[in-house]
């Protein structure tokens, strides 16, 4: 609950700044940021999004194409923009055969159509693997390509610039520092140059799946502070499962020719795979012994965190760390069910108050994330225009009351990529009932699931049987 009134002059400056430069909100404390009247905030957002759309129509070919196809020429209301939104298919709308043939020249041309950058001068002719393409783009342009291959489908490529990643990191940092509060609301934010707190990240330190915030953290607080168990995750291997699936759909025409360069790394990949369990176990040992009684910051999945706490419990470990440690998690539980006292179990094992377990929600497609407030709500960032869509018709639901459906948003932070995105997340959003935490504006309920899981059991006669092989096995047998 906010107990101190906000200085009117600061608030005016904040509003003015927001109109000119959306990311300026990062210069203000969270209570100021969420103090704007929702109607007033929407006016600012509408102003900003009109500006973004006008610019994108000129500079992003995909936006121009979608706008023309759907006859969108002006934005009178937020909903007018929906037909021009990207979705999970947009970032993988390239022909798969180009990837198989290593035709990165064409892939670069395609990538250039999704963002405002001119990539026509990029020389990708020597690239054979995705990893090499990522490097070439990095060397020759401001693009630091994001790749995602969730669910084993076609790989998705997000053309983000270094500047955008830097905004992304600043937004995480802002969230991270804002949410580090003690039991009485006092700030426990980390002080650069003073606090040397290890950051434990339960994933890969480098490579396709690594998290860019890790570099930022070390740059801000000191080298060597990040402890992540897995080494490099390879983009080409990451996409292999999807490529096998795509290939199998095409019959013999799709017979997958694995690039000899990737094949040459077979042994190395097999070794990395085999080492995974040991490396994770080694980190758990460090957590059980080396980091004991220290202040730590942890990032990982909710299930991972819980499993870890259960492991501590089984080994009779309680109160493992300094009470000013923080545990950030997200992603929910694997089976969707969580024990009602999971937070208590985690807090007991690690020796922290429950309020130091921070649950977050975010995605690569959006430059800012959300943290659950102490009243269990995700407050929509001021630079994000939220939408709730009917899950079967994709039509927007009214922007009032509480609505449940597919989540879509317009992110006002990106400069060269497009902010409109339709997610695959099933959410409940409240538009107009203030949250007890005191922050103004729309918020999401904590329960978020995938839309696909909620689909009914309809069966049609059109389609293909479809089956998938395990990517690593496929490669190792090749």
């Amino acid at each position, binding site marked *: 609950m906010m107990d101190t009134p906000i200085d009117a002059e600061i608030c005016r400056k904040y509003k003015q700044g927001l109109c000119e430069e959306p990311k300026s909100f990062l210069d203000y404390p969270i209570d100021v940021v969420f103090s704007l009247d929702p109607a007033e905030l929407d006016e600012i957002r509408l102003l900003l999004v009109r500006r973004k759309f006008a610019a994108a129509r000129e500079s992003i*070919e*995909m936006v121009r*194409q*979608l706008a023309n*196809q759907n006859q969108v020429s002006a934005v009178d209301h937020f909903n007018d923009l929906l*037909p021009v*939104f*990207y*979705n*999970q*298919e*947009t970032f993988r*709308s*390239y*022909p*798969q*055969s180009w990837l198989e043939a290593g035709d990165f020249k*064409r892939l670069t*041309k*395609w990538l250039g*159509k999704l963002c405002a950058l001119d990539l026509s001068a990029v020389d990708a002719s020597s690239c054979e693997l995705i990893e090499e393409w990522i490097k070439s783009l990095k060397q020759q342009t401001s693009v630091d390509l994001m790749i995602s291959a969730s669910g084993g489908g*076609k790989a998705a490529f997000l053309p983000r610039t270094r500047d955008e990643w830097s905004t992304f990191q600043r937004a995480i940092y802002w969230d991270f520092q804002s949410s580090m509060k003690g039991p009485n609301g006092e700030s426990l934010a980390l002080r650069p140059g003073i606090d040397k707190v290890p950051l434990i990240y339960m994933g890969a330190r480098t490579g396709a799946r690594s998290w860019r915030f890790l570099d930022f953290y070390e740059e801000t607080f000191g080298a060597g502070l990040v402890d992540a168990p897995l080494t490099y995750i390879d983009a080409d291997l990451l996409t292999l499962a999807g490529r096998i699936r*795509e290939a199998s*759909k*095409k*019959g*013999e*025409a799709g017979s997958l020719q694995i690039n000899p360069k990737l094949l040459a790394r077979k042994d190395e990949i097999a070794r990395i795979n085999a080492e995974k369990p040991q490396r994770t176990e080694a980190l758990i040992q460090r957590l059980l012994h080396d980091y004991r009684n220290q202040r730590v910051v942890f990032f990982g999945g909710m299930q991972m965190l819980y499993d870890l706490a259960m492991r501590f419990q089984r080994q009779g470990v309680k109160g493992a760390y300094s009470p000013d440690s923080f545990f950030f998690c997200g992603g929910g539980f694997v089976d969707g069910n969580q024990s009602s006292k999971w937070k208590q179990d985690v807090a007991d094992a690690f020796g922290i108050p429950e309020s130091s377990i921070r649950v977050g929600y975010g995605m690569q497609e959006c430059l800012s994330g959300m943290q659950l407030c102490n009243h269990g709500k995700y407050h929509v960032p001021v630079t994000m225009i939220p939408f709730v869509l*009917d899950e*079967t*018709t*994709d*039509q927007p639901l009214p922007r009032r009351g509480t609505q449940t459906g597919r989540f879509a948003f317009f992110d006002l932070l990106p400069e060269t990529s497009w902010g409109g995105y*339709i997610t695959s997340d099933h959410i409940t959003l409240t538009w107009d009932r203030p949250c007890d935490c005191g922050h103004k504006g729309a918020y999401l309920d904590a329960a978020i699931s995938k839309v696909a899981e*909620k689909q*009914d*059991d*309809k*069966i*049609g*006669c*059109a*389609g*293909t*049987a*479809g*089956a998938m092989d395990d990517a690593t096995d496929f490669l190792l047998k090749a």
Partner: protein
Amino acid sequence: MTQYRIPIVARGEVIEDYEVTYHGRYGADFMCPDPNKHLSKILLPTRREMETLHQLSLDDVVTYLLELGARLKIETNPHLQWALELARAFNDVPPHMVRGAMAGFRQRFLTRENLEGMIATVGREHLDGWQRHNRNSGRISYIRAFGVPTVHVIAGNGPSVAMMTLIRNALIRGYAIVKIPSNELGTAIALARTAIDMAPEHPLTKAFTAVYWRGGDDAFESKLYHPRNIERIVAWGGFASVTHIAKYVRPGIDLVTFDPKISRSILGAGTFASDEAMREAATRLADDVGNGNQNGCTNCRVSYAISDGSPDSLERLKRFGQMVFDEIQRLPPEVSSPAIHMEPGFQSKVAALSMLDDEFHVIGGDKRGGVIISLGGDQVDFADELKYRTLNIVPVKDYDALLRFITRDVQTVGVYPEGVRDELRTTLALHGVQRITSLGYMREYDAAIDPHDGNEAMRKMCTWVVAEDCLTNYAPALWRKPAEMAAT
């Protein structure tokens, strides 16, 4: 919001204690009785119940079905009207098309000629008694095909699957438990209720049960799918649904699957020999693509066109693509209409290709439908998911080049000109194709009589029993004394 109520019709009884609410498509909910509570009514109490069924002659069955057909007029049948209303709320297929399919039940399925055609696929001799076969060994084998207790997990993209299931089950005199799909909730129930109105006590009326449960409801399915209860599962559906059902398959339960399929066409060099041929092929292909709004497995999604890849040839293909697109727009509204709603994911896939205009030539690509010409000769990645009347034309230099794209997922291949069929049918079959037909007739598939997705469907739904007489002609056996053998 209207709340729809879907009863269970179990062995001639309509059960209406609605307890469970399901969230259906397009925001509409529906209520059903709890199938767990009524499992004993859904199952046959004893296998003796099958006896009355198999005492019926095929003529009795045909008479019953013809009478049922006479009652399937939408105007006078309240149950079909109710099913239509449900299709309006829950099906992707526009209501007038569902109506058209229902109105065609009698003419398409329930004529004497059609029923005889279906009977002939198994053989009247095997369905109406024990057919004698004299074996070389001296044994006399009497063979009869029996329908058995079977769960039919049917597809719901139209009402005809429920109709066909009822007829197939009646002709083989099986006991059918139909698992209603969530997108076609009404037809199976409407047919079962029409039968009750007509002949409530008839064994065939009691041999057709229709019930909705949420596919994947383990609690119910693990009780239902037991060899004590059923002997066969006939499952329509894809990898996920069949994989799910397959876990219940064990010795004693047999699985018959009708996988989802896709269809394609081949345009031989003759197609582009004259403007006249191009126009005719375009008109015919437009029907293959657009009829039924490309919701079916028989709809054409990809056309392979013979082309030398020269600029001239590609220009001709573009012109042909425009013709097909125009013809699709001219299809009569009762068989085809523009999309009401387009999925954003699909739209962005087409939009991306529109921008890659060195490699793809896109005509339309919106709610009217579209034609995507792959100038580089590679079919689009989403070839199997093309919808909203969208066709991908892929130039290939010869037939060998297109065979690389053909898998067992391809059900029908439409051909133009006619000679292509004779030239390619064996090769296509060896690549997995199950039906080859004239361009413009892809949608006219009579799977009730012709092989269904590579299956002799009704034969496969039967359990084939042999009763042997080994004595009349003295078949040899270990225990028989050679002398006795010699004496005969």
